[in-house]
């Protein structure tokens, strides 16, 4: 900090005349100044899209935000009003299904990678597979769920969407949970072994509780990512204009609406009402994602 803090113009040079300051007009100082301004400009420009997106969401999406859009069904064609209550519910149900698969599996795998066999060949291959899944195009997770579930059951469904999202959530959970478990101090672990704990007791009673904030951070980041995914849902859950539940009985094995797919569908429609709803749905989706992100940060800070 201290060295850089002086900035380019005053960085000391010891010349023949023992001149310890460099003039602002020195060619090298000017060049440095120019590049610094260019970097500032680039950084500010990178912030422009974010500001623009948030502005549009608040202005165009905020106009319709209210209780109505959250409890009503999507409008058809020329209809006015309506909402996307079923899509909010569909997103929550499918992300929930994905979490049910990805979290236990991810944490178990992370326990193995971090504690049980960190340098075994199984761990090395699994770590490699996880890294591969991290860079996996989300649409291919959809293709997998389509081949595995939609073609087998013969219908678009919430579980198919959930499986696709689980594939995308899994690597985030594994990698962050592994890091969190590894970060538990060696002494804590040794103390537990010294008390006569079995490996499993150490893991369940010491490692996982200590690493919990870190694991939760990863879980929430995975959930936030899954909630915003569209491509894998397009042809696994498809979309629907009806409720997922009839009373309290869920109808999971049928096309299921989600916020992300609804935004996509409505964005291409020639009706103003639908376009407005697409913006409002975007606002709701971004708020959901941001709230989860902020929560994950709050939890992570406790670690």
């Amino acid at each position: 900090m201290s060295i850089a803090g002086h900035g380019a113009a005053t960085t000391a040079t010891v010349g023949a005349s023992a001149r310890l300051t460099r003039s602002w007009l020195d060619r090298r100082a000017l060049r440095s100044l120019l590049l610094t301004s260019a970097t500032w400009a680039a950084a500010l420009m990178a912030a422009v899209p974010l500001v623009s997106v948030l502005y549009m969401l608040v202005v165009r999406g905020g106009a319709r935000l209210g209780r109505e859009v959250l409890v009503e069904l999507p409008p058809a064609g020329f209809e006015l009003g309506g909402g996307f209550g079923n899509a909010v519910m569909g997103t929550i149900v499918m992300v929930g299904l994905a979490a049910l698969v990805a979290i236990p599996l991810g944490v178990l795998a992370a326990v193995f990678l971090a504690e049980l066999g960190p340098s075994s060949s199984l761990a090395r291959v699994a770590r490699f597979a996880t890294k591969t899944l991290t860079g996996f195009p989300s649409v291919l997770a959809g293709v997998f769920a389509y081949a595995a579930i939609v073609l087998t059951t013969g219908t678009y469904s919430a579980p198919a969407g959930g499986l696709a999202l689980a594939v995308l959530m899994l690597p985030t959970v594994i990698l962050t949970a592994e890091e969190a478990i590894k970060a538990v101090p060696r002494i804590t672990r040794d103390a537990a072994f010294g008390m006569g704990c079995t490996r499993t007791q150490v893991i369940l009673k010491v490692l996982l509780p200590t690493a919990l904030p870190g694991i939760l951070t990863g879980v929430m980041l995975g959930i936030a990512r899954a909630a915003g995914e569209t491509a894998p849902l397009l042809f696994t859950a498809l979309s629907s204009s009806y409720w997922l539940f009839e009373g309290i009985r869920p109808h999971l094995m049928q096309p299921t609406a989600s916020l992300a797919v609804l935004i996509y569908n409505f964005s291409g429609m020639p009706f103003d009402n639908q376009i407005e709803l697409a913006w409002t749905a975007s606002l709701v989706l971004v708020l959901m994602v941001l709230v989860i992100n902020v929560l994950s940060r709050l939890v992570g800070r406790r670690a």
Partner: protein
Amino acid sequence: MKLAAQRPAVSASISGPPSRLDYAADRVFRLMAQGGTWLVLLLLAAIIWEIGTKAAAAIGRYGAHFLTSTTWDVGRQQFGVLPHIWGTMYSSLLALAIGGFFGIAMAIFLTQDFLPPRLAHVFRIVVELLAAIPSVVYGLWGLFVVVPAMRPLADAAYQHLGWIPFFGTTLSGPGLAPASLVLAIMILPTVAAVSQDALRLVPYRVKEAAYGMGTTRWEAILKVLLPAASTGIFGALVLGFGRALGETMALAMLIGNSNQIALSLFAPANTLAALLALNFPEAGPREVEVLMYAALVLLAITLLVNLLGEAIMRRSARRLAAR
């Protein structure tokens, strides 16, 4: 097991060697953890297997011709993905050029003490928020903000510079340029985050040594820090490229879905990922096989690029650790 039998009953709940039940639980839990790890491996294998076997029929029927043919006609059962491969590569490279530049600039900005810590934190949040916004929202924003804003510029470029192939058409709505711009915004956080890690790996004393030699801040950055972190930054670019190749929604909404190969930045195009997203919902059984083949092509390309990126990152981390 003998130990367990000798254990005094009073202290059973507080201390003592593990009971038979504890041993059994230990065994079960370990097996579960190992099983979970195997499941992760199996998942990746199942993904490749499912897509591969479902594509097998189409691979047999169309072979390598699929990769070089340019028609996609469901009625006549003719399929080729050359325009999609072209569009995927073209849009991703454009996005990489823009997003890579801004991402690296951002990484330098955030790691080289340009900002007081509090302000740096604000910019870090900006980058993280850029990454958090779902791609479908970017698509919507692109459709209603970027395309209208870019249109007059594009038309002016066409009128005055139309002889350059890159400006050879007008922008009639969705097209390559708005799609690539939005894609650039989406990969910026990846490039910025990984480049920051690379720059932080360069020991502070290297920078101090450069300043001690009397360099200006930018001479130190350009001649010492960037070369030292170059492998990592290159890895960041490759990973960003991989992300761009697989990105779907923003492109499906903005690129125009036209199966043509054009140099013009304003012409509509198509990408592999967009092809999958848009055609799967209404595909008949024959077309599904073909789409599975296209998915396999996308899988192969992204896998290759990501593996390359990971390998470069590992090498850069090793090189810096060895110093």
